[in-house]
């Protein structure tokens, strides 16, 4: 495999709070290849957004602390950059689309006014452009996201647009800088099903056309299945499983992924599964060993003591669970137990 575009190695993020430290990210490993579409799935509070904010270095520090880890974007460590270098990465290198387009756009400025700085500071040449040239570029960006009548849109305020249109404006803005990596944080969650379908279709087409890499964060498994090439499953600050999309959906390995898949109500009927018992652990004193052991139906002794590393199962399918440990020591333990 060639050098990945983004490579996160053993990333830890903690938050200083009254009463201790929240150990949120606990050794996250994550990589995105050039032109790859990655899905990141997990429950609310599992650290998806924290990971992404760490990549862009937009976590408030303090209270956030990054004691260990490496975030390499195009061969350079984001964690070691100064603010001038960071501002080159943000926007030009990595863009982000947020969950709620209403909150992401400023209500007191027109779309055009919000577009201007995005385009102006996206590259050194653009700084010297006139207002009219910038406006023309903005119009092109809005046309790309299939918005009709971009001229009028640029003079509208966000509240004059519908939710789907606002989200498309955000996508247009994020892509106007021609980023190499696009982070889409639940881009369809605040939209209706038919509109979400439109927005995701548009996003897929655009990134394929421009060969942009994408990280799609969501807690809706179905959305990932339709969009991503490879999926990471996250639980309580750990990556627990990664696999090419068809493999993950055909054969989920980690007990957490299996529970998650079963919990999704099916269109074909068959009732609603009970879900996963228990809840996401408290980050002030997370469980020892595997963080999922408190809710796992297959918990073993070793799960309470040791944190499972990634075990390769086949062709890019990796899972952090001792059930899949096929090392000689593990086999011997099994034999002893038998």
């Amino acid at each position, binding site marked *: 495999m060639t050098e990945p575009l983004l490579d996160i190695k053993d990333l830890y993020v903690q938050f200083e709070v009254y009463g201790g430290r929240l150990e949120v990210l606990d050794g996250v490993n994550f990589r995105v290849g050039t032109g790859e579409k990655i899905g990141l799935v997990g429950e609310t509070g599992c650290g998806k957004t924290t990971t992404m904010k760490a990549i862009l270095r937009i976590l408030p520090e303090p209270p956030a602390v990054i004691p260990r880890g490496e975030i390499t974007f195009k061969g350079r460590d984001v964690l070691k950059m100064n603010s001038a270098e960071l501002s080159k990465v943000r926007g030009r290198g990595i863009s982000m689309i947020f969950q709620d387009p209403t909150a992401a756009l400023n209500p007191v400025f027109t779309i055009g006014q919000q577009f201007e700085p995005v385009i102006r500071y996206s590259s050194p040449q653009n700084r010297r452009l006139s207002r009219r040239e910038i406006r023309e570029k903005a119009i092109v960006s809005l046309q790309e996201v299939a918005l009709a009548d971009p001229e009028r849109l640029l003079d509208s305020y966000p509240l004059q647009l519908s939710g789907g249109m606002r989200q498309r404006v955000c996508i247009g803005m994020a892509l106007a800088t021609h980023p190499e990596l696009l982070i889409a944080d639940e881009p369809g969650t605040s939209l209706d099903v*038919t509109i979400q379908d439109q927005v995701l279709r548009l996003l897929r087409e655009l990134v394929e056309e421009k060969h942009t890499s994408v990280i799609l964060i969501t*807690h809706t498994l179905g959305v990932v299945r*339709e969009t991503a090439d490879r999926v990471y499953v996250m639980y309580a600050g750990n990556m627990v499983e990664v696999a090419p999309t068809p493999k993950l959906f055909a054969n989920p390995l980690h007990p957490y992924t299996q529970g998650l898949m079963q919990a*999704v109500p099916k*269109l074909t*009927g068959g009732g*609603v599964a009970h879900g996963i018992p228990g*809840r996401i652990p408290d980050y002030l004193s997370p469980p020892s060993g595997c963080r999922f052991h408190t809710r796992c139906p297959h918990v073993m002794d070793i799960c309470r003591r040791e944190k499972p590393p990634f075990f390769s199962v086949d062709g890019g399918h990796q899972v952090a669970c001792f059930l899949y440990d096929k090392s000689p020591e593990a086999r011997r333990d099994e034999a002893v137990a038998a």
Partner: protein
Amino acid sequence: MSTEILTVDGLKKHFVIGYEGTINRRPIKVKAVDGINFGLQEGETFGLVGESGSGKSTIAYITVGMYQPTEGKMYFRGEDLFAGNLERPLPLRKEIQIVFQDPGSSLNPRRTIRQILELPLRIHRPKEDPLHEVMRLLDMVELPIEYMHKYPQMLSGGEKQIIAIARALATNPSLIILDEPTSALDVSVQGKVINLLLRLQRELGLTYLFITHDLSLMRNVASRVGIMYLGKICEVAEASQFFQDPQHPYTRMLLSSIPVVSEEEEAAKPEKIESTGEIPSPVNVPAGCSFHTRCPHVMDICKHVDPVMVDTSPGHMARCHLFEQPAELIAPFFVEHGDAVAQT
């Protein structure tokens, strides 16, 4: 033969959001609910599905009496819920309860669970021992009894919603309105809440009006489904039939847009209809059929005449010009536009 517990007849709710014109001031109206008919059978789960702004929640709020309808009637076991514009009498209020979408804001953060659950008890069942009843309610929803001393923020999202369900049960209602009860929860928790609701329904013989935008969930809980679009119902059917054979073009678009997790489900979806266009604003509902701006089968008549509900098969109704409409509704249109249109 089961009986109808709730009958909705020509229900309308228009909100005045401003005025236009200086001399002839006319109100600007949002037609949140615009002429809706349906009935709930005793003991069933009727699912009401629709996109945001389609008027689902407005129906819920009218049913519990938070709003007065602009027009139309609503009957609970034959009794008019809005008789004489009076405040709803207590015995009737006790029968219809609601669980809101966001348990974080529907529970008072300054009250303990015990206080939250005691309030409806004191109002509706003053003769009973509230403490004993609180314990019984917590037991019914499978939460530890110690929880009554906790405050809402000490509970997880799922537990909060379970408390909201217990509060709705406190009055011994026969109809509970579930307004997106799990859309604020994670899938792993959703199952627990849904199964609790289904068990309670079996044990207590409850009727649910289940409002959601999640069709996959609806498939698994509802016995009948109604689809709403811009303040009107466009299709009503038995759940199993509805998912096998959707009739209305909007319903088919909706069903084909759902992201699913397996191949079997993909096969169960109707043929893909690419969703286009924006949902029109409810202030400015298109003339004729309100879906005509996005409909792949749009005809001339759709832009002028609003269709009515017709039976497409027993127990399955749709509101679309693709199905034969009553002659008196469409005749004036063809007279006006000549026969040329009729042929197209």
